[in-house]
């Protein structure tokens, strides 16, 4: 039981990091970034590249990879999402799908499709750590949970308290009004995308150190957007309970239910949510009519 709880927390942290990315992008561009999973993969490969270039120097490789991820987010906004402003939402979502395709093709071209393990080059190890109640997790499992907690705490403080964060919230809510108040919403949206890519990349860096790195990791992103939707696409706070819920359903179906359902369980949660309460647990109801 303790082990199931521990695993749920770890899986929920992964989903929460990805979900945060979805929500941040949605609040900025009103678009579901279907390439979030590929941004996770990209983050993992950035880490692999920096670790290979600077072996045994995790203090350099890790922040560098994170910075590269954030930079990618900015580039994506400037090159793809800004020109799509004013186009139908459908087209913008399609653009994110093509972004995913491009990212994947680029990764395979540069790194080939071999499974990689960045941890080897980093000079770190991933020993198991026993917890209370007989549960055992790996070190990077704990890092994943810690990163999720830290990111959400930081985002919370940033968005609630700091002037830039307040501007970001304003621009996300009513971009026209915000621009008339002098907020540079392009800069703010670029920052949203940078944060989203950073969150995804962070998740990718930790996942690839914990499990493995291969180009097809993007599929994790597909599960996580069910999480974002269940929590409410525009609610950052909703991501955490939604992630816990979806992860719990997944783990429970393996341990006590039908293991084969675990693959499709996020989508069942999504369907249930769409039928009962489409705007999610904590989303704004009017969001439904916006699109």
């Amino acid at each position, binding site marked *: 039981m303790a082990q199931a709880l521990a695993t749920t927390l770890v899986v929920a942290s992964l989903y929460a990091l990805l979900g945060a990315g979805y929500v941040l992008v949605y609040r900025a561009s009103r678009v579901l970034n279907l390439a979030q999973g590929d941004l996770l993969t990209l983050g993992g490969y950035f880490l692999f590249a920096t670790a290979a270039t600077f072996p045994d120097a995790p203090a350099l490789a890790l922040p560098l990879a994170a910075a590269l991820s954030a930079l990618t987010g900015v580039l994506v906004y400037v090159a793809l999402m800004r020109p799509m402003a004013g186009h139908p939402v459908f087209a913008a979502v399609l653009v994110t799908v093509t972004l995913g395709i491009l990212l994947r093709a680029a990764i395979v*071209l540069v790194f080939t499709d071999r499974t990689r393990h960045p941890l080897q080059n980093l000079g770190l190890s991933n020993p198991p750590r026993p917890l209370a109640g007989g549960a055992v997790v790996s070190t990077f499992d704990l890092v994943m949970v810690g990163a999720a907690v830290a990111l959400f705490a930081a985002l919370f403080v940033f968005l609630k308290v700091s002037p830039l964060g307040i501007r970001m919230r304003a621009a996300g809510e009513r971009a026209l009004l915000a621009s008339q108040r002098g907020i540079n919403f392009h800069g703010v949206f670029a920052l949203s995308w940078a944060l989203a890519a950073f969150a995804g990349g962070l998740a990718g860096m930790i996942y690839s150190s914990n499990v493995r790195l291969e180009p097809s990791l993007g599929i994790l992103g597909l599960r996580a957007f069910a999480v974002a939707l269940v929590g409410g696409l525009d609610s950052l706070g909703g991501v955490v309970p939604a992630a816990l819920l979806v992860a719990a359903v997944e783990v429970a179906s393996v341990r006590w239910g039908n293991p084969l359902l675990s693959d499709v369980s996020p*989508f069942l949660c999504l*369907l249930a949510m*769409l*039928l009962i309460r489409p705007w999610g647990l904590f989303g704004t109801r009017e969001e439904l009519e916006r699109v």
Partner: protein
Amino acid sequence: MPALGGGYFKTSYEADLALVDTRLRRLALTALVLVLLALPRFASGFVLDLVSQAAFAAIGALALNVLTGLAGQISLGHAGLLAAGAFTTAALVERGIVSPLVTLPATALVGGVLGLVVGIPSLRLKGLYLALGTLAMHHVVLYAAGEMQARAGGNTGFTIPAPRLGGLVFRGTVAWYYALVALAALVLVLVVNLQRSRAGRAWMAIRDRDVAAASVGIDVARYKLSAFVWSSVITALAGALFAYHRGFVSVEAFGFFVAVDYIAMIIIGGLGSALGAVLGAAFVTLLPYAIDALVAGVSPDAAQYYVFPAKFGAFGLLMALFLVFEPLGLVGIWRRVRNWVFLWPFRHRPLRASS
């Protein structure tokens, strides 16, 4: 009596309603039909297969266009509907029912029911939420199909025998070429007529502003559902066609990427236009082969390993370029070129009902 004056003067109501109204259009259409009929004479099996693939893609793209382009209901579940059609056929074949005369109507029925099931949430959901609901449907259908495939005792898929219609057996490239092109033409005529009918106008009204549509008395719920049902029936039938054509059905053939392909077809072709769906289908189907030929022409001995992800990436890049720079799609380009050719030195067509 064909329209005179370049299509601007009509002298009878029949002429106004005609699908193909000017002399030039009739000529072009006749020429196209003749070329398509005679193609097996002078083209290789490979080219015929390409055209067949494009025709098949056009059927699916036209169905998706009805739902998304005309009625404005975003659907990401197209692959799931194709899978439903294909697996219904497979299930019937497994039970010994092989004749298309039985499987096709059954598939249409399943498609219709599935369309209703997916359409009902559409009455509450819009835009992104609807898209996600359809995506969830796709995953559930694929899961069910995967379970069916796994339970069929070790098969990695179902083999479908060649369909027999009366005494005709559809086997081989040429037979399927004619069948698929004919069916694509049929679906095209069907969709164009739907577009011009009351339902089509209602759909377009719902797409543009459904609140306004409701306020002029259009039964939004009924027309939304009918859009889903029409689209799903045609798509499910396309799935059955896929099963017969390939002779083999397995769940791996219906991944999410297939849905992306079809959406790319209607977006690249031009949303809302039947011609756009056909053009987009042809473009997306032929693109990988065009890149192949391009690479083979430029550097035949290129590290083949890089060609393959390059093809994949080129597809994504082109799609992105179309989305960003040419939102009206190929149809938009076609109309601009055609207008320039016919109207030069004038620039703009005068207003008319359809162009």
